[in-house]
């Protein structure tokens, strides 16, 4: 039964077009969705049925639980990003359709990050200063959480991503990365730990060690294969979004730190990877090193916004399918996101960038991206850093932050597809990887800072 009978299928489209053009309204079609989210209510009231029900959207052709393949993708073609559509039609990718998440507050945020977000909003929210950096309305540096939970502009949507990559004060992920070539063969497989430590903009409001100029420390520590084990990188991010992070690499055999060029953002960290530093979290570079931000469109889209954590499977490993050898894609679930902002930006701070622009497909329910498409300078699609995220819940199994009953929210997987060379990088969030690396969240900073997040620390990873 139609709930809002007076709104036809084109009504939402017209609203979205108007919002994209004016850039002033917040999320929501029938009413603003943010007040509902802020109250912990369902966003159902904010959208007509066809934006929250895949069955309504496709006029009954696709239902929750259906598998989308090249045989039925035509019914959801208008909801796919360009990579997803081509992968389904040309490479045998399949996705499972899940129900749209309506309980955004509980399911699409982590409790600590949500609370910090609400505190920030209660204090008046955020704005940009004359330099384009983020500050509170009181003129101070941002204190944590999402600064613009109801983003209205491209910059607001982007800073949400850049400022809080993992949406936690400290994270350590166990990661397995597999590089698959165009023939479907595996060229490289790496295990590593990806660690982030927020120096400020933390959910606890602290500024670690009074380092007011820093935003975060971030470490990548390879533990396998043997030829790269012990190799590590330390990236120090500045709060000033005009300033490039410092990047150091460490090779244990030489006991030497190598400083990389600050502007080397379009090279992979390790041989074989299709993603560059610039791609990480769809916001791998400080926000103001890119420019010409604009909202390309606002639209409904299929997003991997939940259901992609396979905690019941050994080492959380996902099934694979598609591609020449049946191993190119993870088995993934997508849901109809009612309102997605497609934001475009250009690498204006990189005179030699091989990229022309990028487009981030940002889910306005929680300001998280799913597709992050890098285009070449001819405007041709190049790489999509597709990221699936959501709570670590698999049926009746849920992982909680230590000592709480708050479900962990995290990224679940990344499929970084280079559509020009046919290469695929699969990045899997594993339970543990070589070297005994496991996942950790929000460990007190003083426990980990000196142990992992300094040049001296990274030099100790590879003691052999």
């Amino acid at each position: 039964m139609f709930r809002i009978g007076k709104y036809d299928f084109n009504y939402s489209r017209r609203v979205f077009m108007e919002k994209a053009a004016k850039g002033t309204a917040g999320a929501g079609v029938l009413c603003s969705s943010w007040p509902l989210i802020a109250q912990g209510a369902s966003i159902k009231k904010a959208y007509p049925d066809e934006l929250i029900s895949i069955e309504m959207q496709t006029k009954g052709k696709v239902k929750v639980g259906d598998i989308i393949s090249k045989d039925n993708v035509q019914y959801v073609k208008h909801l796919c990003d360009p990579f997803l559509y081509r992968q389904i039609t040309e490479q045998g990718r399949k996705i499972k359709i899940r129900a749209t998440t309506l309980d955004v507050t509980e399911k699409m945020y982590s409790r600590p990050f949500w609370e910090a977000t609400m505190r920030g909003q209660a204090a008046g929210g955020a704005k940009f200063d004359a330099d384009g950096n983020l500050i509170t309305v009181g003129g101070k540096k941002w204190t944590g959480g999402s600064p613009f939970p109801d983003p209205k502009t491209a910059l607001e949507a982007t800073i949400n991503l850049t400022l809080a990559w993992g949406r936690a004060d400290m994270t350590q992920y166990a990661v397995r990365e597999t590089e698959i070539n165009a023939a479907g063969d595996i060229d490289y497989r790496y295990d590593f730990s990806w660690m982030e430590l927020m120096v400020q903009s933390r959910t606890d409001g602290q500024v670690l060690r009074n380092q007011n100029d820093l935003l975060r420390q971030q470490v990548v520590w390879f533990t396998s294969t043997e030829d790269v084990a012990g190799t590590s990188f330390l990236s120090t991010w500045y709060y000033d979004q005009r300033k490039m992070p410092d990047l150091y690499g460490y090779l244990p055999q030489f006991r030497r730190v190598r400083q990389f060029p600050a502007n080397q953002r379009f090279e992979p960290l390790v041989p074989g990877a299709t993603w560059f530093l610039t791609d990480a979290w769809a916001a791998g570079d400080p926000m103001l090193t890119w420019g010409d931000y604009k909202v390309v469109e606002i639209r409904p889209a299929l997003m991997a916004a939940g259901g992609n954590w396979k905690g019941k499977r050994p080492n959380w490993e996902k099934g694979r399918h598609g591609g020449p050898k049946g191993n190119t894609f993870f088995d993934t679930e997508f849901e109809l996101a009612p309102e997605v902002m497609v934001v475009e930006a250009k690498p204006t701070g990189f005179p030699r960038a091989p990229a022309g622009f990028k487009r981030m497909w940002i889910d306005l329910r929680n300001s998280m991206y799913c597709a992050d498409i890098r285009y070449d300078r001819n405007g041709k699609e190049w790489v999509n850093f597709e990221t699936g995220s959501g709570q670590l819940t698999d049926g009746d199994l849920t992982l909680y932050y230590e000592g709480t009953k708050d479900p962990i929210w995290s990224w679940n997987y990344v499929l970084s597809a280079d559509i020009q060379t046919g290469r695929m990088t699969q990045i899997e969030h594993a339970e543990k990887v070589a070297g005994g690396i496991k996942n950790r969240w929000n460990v007190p900073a003083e426990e980990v800072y000196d142990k992992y997040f300094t040049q001296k620390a990274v030099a100790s990873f590879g003691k052999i």
Partner: protein
Amino acid sequence: MKAAINRFSAWVVNHAMIMWVIMAAFTLFFAIGLRTVDIRTVFSDLLPKDDPYVKVFSDHPNFGNPLTMTVMVKRKDGKIYNSETLKKIWNLTRDIDLAPGVDHDTIISITTEKARYAEATPLGVNMQPVMGDRVPTTPEELEDLRRRIEQSPNAKTFLVSRDESAAVIQATFLESKVDWGKAFAFVQNLVEKARDKDHEVYLAGQPALIGWVYKLRAQIGWIFIATFCALTVVLALYMRNFGGTVTPVICSVVAGIWGFGLAGWIRSPIEPLLLVVPVLLVARTFSHCVQYSERYYEILAHVRNKKKAVEICMSVMMVPSVFGIITDFLGITLIAMAPIPAMERFALFAGWWAIAIIPNGVILISLLLLALPTPKNIDKLVGQDTGLHGAIRNWLLALAKITYGKPAFLTAGFFAVLAVAATYLAIQIKIGNPVEGSNVLFPDSEYNMAVKAINRNFPGVNTLEIVIEAKPGAGQKWRVARSEEASFVRTKLQALIESSEHPPRATLSFTDYMMEGNRLFSGGSPKWLPLDPDPQAVNAAGTSVTMGSNPKNFANVSDYAFQNSTVSLWYADNKQETVDNALATAKKAVDAVGVDHKDFTVRLGTGLIALQQSMNNVTERFHYRILGALSLVIVILASLVYRSVIGGLLLIIPVLLSNFLLFAAMNIVGVGLDINSLMVAAVAVGVGIDYDIYLLSRICEEYHAHDGDWKRTIAASLSTTGKAILFTATVVLVGLTPWYFMSDLKFMSDMSILLLILVTINMIMALVVLPLLVWFIKPKFATRTDLIVGESYDLSDFTAKGSEIDSMMAKV
């Protein structure tokens, strides 16, 4: 047999409408196939697939940079270290990134971040791009850039010339994505715009070569049209009647539709470089049709009944026509003995086209002759001794006189000496015909000039690659290319070859990068260049240069997964002597380090030097084999047709002599035998022998008409069929000449001139040597009356009368 041919001829004439329908249906079928005709060059298909070097190339196609375009910017009046030149390099580098199908990860020049220098710092190493985010402008900045490039061994050797007057930009293309024509047009446009009074800008590399060939494809089409028009004009001038002109044109077009149509239906790409052969086939169709029409007119002049004349003509001409076409077919298809995929495909395409000439040159022509109005100038064409035709006839009768009687001994002596000398010189011909750059284009072509310029300023394009090939399953712990053993084998190979009698001008392997990484991470002193003989230390050196880098940055020395690697050796030129020395030295070095190792095999080799040798090898292996097989098949076929082995030998001797004469001439002027000339030789055997077939068949017919008088037989044959031979050879020459003068593709031009020469020699041999041999041998088979050539009719009715010949001979 004879009865069958007669019955068939009569049936065709009496059921012309049915035959029209059948021919139209086939033509329509093949015309539909034209929609999917694909004319393109697949360069790797021009290589012999069973050659060991080509096998290495096929297994490791990325070594030797086959997909890389190289642009060189040269400052005419000084060094590159000025903002104007550097800006040009910067802009070209950025603009090439916009080329369609380019692999963005592979673009490198001194203006990209990939060209880095390194400095040791107290904590370790600081690696930075040699150029910052903008082009330096002040003298201090320019000097600083120069210093940084000096500190970057890779940039210093491969990106900036030794005299600092030139720099290169390299971009690799994605084979699966690129349209070579578009990519080349894009980059060539950039190059042309970048040239000015102070700068020379060159473009080279295999993709540029492909681009040039694609660009010249349009020219091929125009020359094809010009050729066709020229042929038609010559034909019209010769025939001076509508039917005689239109018939060959229609038959050629229809045969062409059949030929291209099949290639379209089976989706087999046609190699544009070999399109001279279809031109030859068009000319051959013209020739067959002229031979056929002339004979028809002769018969028509006698029988004065069009239907009967067509029927008789088909009966008389079917066997020599079919036999002649089959030899064309054999000449084309036996090229496929050389295991070169492009030639195999081409043999199918052109061979089928040749076969298609049979129904068109026998049936369609008969239908056309039947349908078209009777020419009014038949008498002029067949018997008058005035005008051009008369002059030709008189000249041929004069020529005939040196082939019999006493002059024959003198002529025979001359040709015997010529044959011995030609054979002696021909068997000494050198294999290989190297040019700097590509043999496809002329030495002074823009592409080859670019290759020369780049070779002068940089290590260049003449590489020999020795591949260190990982064994299946190897590299589980340490990637083979970064393993201790592979690293030391590469080093040893480089050391042995560099210290040899014939050292290359530069060598490079992944070990060089590893050593540089080792030096830098160990503090910067050159004493840390050598790698410790320890698996972990060697692997660490590999990791030091690959972390934070794209494997494509090392694609010239290692594969993407760092399993297979190569030792690249650069040579100053690709002269045969250099190639021989390079391969001998490399072979010795490979033997010294051993071929088989625990995790890998050392394979020699690929790169331009090895691939050039592979072409020489295939020429050497197959040139006698193809010519031998072709000769044997023709002798067997001719023996069957003439029911005598002597018949076969009579046909093959003039043709082989022609080939030996060509090879001898090539040897004298210093041109080596290569795959082009081999192909020409084979095709020309098939074409050249047609003249002998027609003449010998005519001799068999005339023998009876002249009561066994050999002199009159030869004179009559030469004055009739000889005239047609002269004309048809002229047609072929007219067809080929535009290709020599108009084509910017040396490959085509070479083929056309070689064919031109060979067809001319063949014609002379047919007109002189064949009658000479007949005069001396006086073959018995010619005296038989049951031959399938010209059988079953009282040929005396439409052969020249003895008295006519006598009177004509007396006049000349």
